């Protein structure tokens, strides 16, 4: 049985990754999860300088999921390179760094810095965070803006780049095609869906930012649909995510066309989720006599 999967020339021991922003840089989950068991750790978004993020409350629970408006609080690339990368290097897992910015220059800055670090296998470009006012999301909601930033980053990136798509669009395939045309090596989807919760007793927004990005099991059917649509529309590999709680969920994404999957909000609900998903995928492959994980990719009829 071979659970390996390859994306843009990088081979992962299994298809299970952590969704950016839900696992820190692995440090906080080291107590729960043997990081060596993971296909990859995808880190929290990092910018060229520290970002303070949004005011609190930043998180709220909703039916079958949660809203967040962290606003990409992060220590900036300097601290990240000094602290988080060395930490992750200790483990036998791939490192994918999620990159955020407010302008193309911000992104280029970070991408160039990371180019010097061979331990980083791939870069995931977050152009789809709905919680940051300036820039960012605009790149993820307009096909031409996405094309431009992707091709610009490709000029500077030493590692393969994954463009992370926003689900808050009319036609996700249009975005996927623009990223592919601009040279993206892979796509990841979905980022959170913009939502809102109102406390009816206080008549106030549950999140200080008014809106927050929705994640968790509630969004899974939307995410699976988008992964399927994108898999039909482009040739580059896809990392699927959105509400994955179990191996069954992960397999659903893989059958829909994902070459790998990420576990996000469910880490908060059960810190052992990632490893359980790894084991459950193996069980499924054993039960159905699947020799290679890659045979499952896009295998829905």
């Amino acid at each position, binding site marked *: 049985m071979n659970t390996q999967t390859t994306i843009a020339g990088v081979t992962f021991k299994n298809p299970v990754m952590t969704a950016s*922003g*839900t*696992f*820190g840089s692995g440090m*906080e*989950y080291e*107590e*729960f999860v043997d990081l060596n068991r993971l296909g990859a750790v995808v880190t*929290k978004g990092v910018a060229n300088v*520290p*970002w*303070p*993020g949004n005011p*609190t*409350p*930043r*998180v*709220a*629970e909703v*039916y*079958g*999921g*949660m809203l*967040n408006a*962290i606003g990409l*609080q*992060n*220590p*900036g690339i300097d*601290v990240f390179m000094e602290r988080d990368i060395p930490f992750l290097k200790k483990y036998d897992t791939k490192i994918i760094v999620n990159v955020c910015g407010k302008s193309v220059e911000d992104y280029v800055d970070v991408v160039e810095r990371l180019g010097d670090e061979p331990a980083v296998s791939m870069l995931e470009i977050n152009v789809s965070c709905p919680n940051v006012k300036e820039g960012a999301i605009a790149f993820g909601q307009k096909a031409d803006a996405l094309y431009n930033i992707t091709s610009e980053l490709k000029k500077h990136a030493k590692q393969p780049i994954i463009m992370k798509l926003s689900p808050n669009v009319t036609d996700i395939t249009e975005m996927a095609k623009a990223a592919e045309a601009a040279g993206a090596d892979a796509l990841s989807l979905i980022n959170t869906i913009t939502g809102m919760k109102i406390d009816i007793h206080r008549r106030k927004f549950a999140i200080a930012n008014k809106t927050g990005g929705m994640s*968790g*099991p509630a969004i899974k059917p939307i995410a699976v649909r988008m992964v399927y649509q994108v898999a039909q529309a482009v040739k580059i590999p896809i990392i699927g995510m959105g509400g994955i709680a179990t191996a069954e969920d992960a397999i659903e994404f893989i059958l829909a066309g994902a070459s790998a999957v990420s576990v996000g*909000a*469910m*880490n*908060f*609900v*059960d*810190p*052992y989720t990632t490893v359980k998903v790894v084991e459950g995928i193996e069980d499924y492959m054993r039960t159905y006599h699947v020799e290679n994980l890659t045979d499952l990719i896009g295998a829905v009829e």
Partner: protein
Amino acid sequence: MKKKITATVLSQKEIAPRIFDMWIATELAACAKAGQFIGVYPKDRSTLLPRPISICQVNDKKDALRIVYRIAGQGTAEFSSYQEGDSVEILGTLGNGFPTEAAEGKKVFLMGGGIGIPPMLELARELPASAEKQIIVGYRDDQLFLKEDLEKNGTVYIATEDGSVGTKGNVMNAIEENHLQADVIFACGPMPMLRAIKKYAEEKKIKAYISLEEHMACGVGACLGCVVKTKEVDHHSHVHNARICTDGPVFDAEEVEI
């Protein structure tokens, strides 16, 4: 070592209207300390996140935890239905806890307001014998939950909003009315109370350790959902935003901007 484990309910009773007192058997008790909390998971899967609840007491054998909580919504309502023998999933132990060593040989205030009272019990139990414990607790009315337990561990002063028992008003009024003094303060309660304590401690130039609350997702420092503004750059994100769940919930009042 933090863990998510399945614990067993040992007992549960309603000790005041909508306030429940639950003992659970769990190995997590072995390293639990005052001011720490656990995440309690509702079973109904429409509601997924763990509910942060303070540790109210650790039994002497250190194999059981007591929590005291108010029904605030769906999760706590579910917890209140648990009975002896039921299982409950918990994550813990979380947070830093109170720096009890700071009380060594000192006159201490242990101040709790409303549902911030429970952690004061375990704190009173853990404070060094050399500390002089003045426990000042504020209730809404005459439903004085945990009063007897607290009295076993120090001198208790009571304030009630409706004036039915002790000082009419809040814990600050109780300090005044009883002419109390302290070298160090430990406190947990609603934000206005903590703000008043921070101010009081600054004026009196004494240390105050306050336990903060914020909506949480992960409880372990990963999501950055639960931050509080800090005076100095925080050590994690370097942006004056410390994580209440891991860097706190207890902070030196001087260090946070609330």
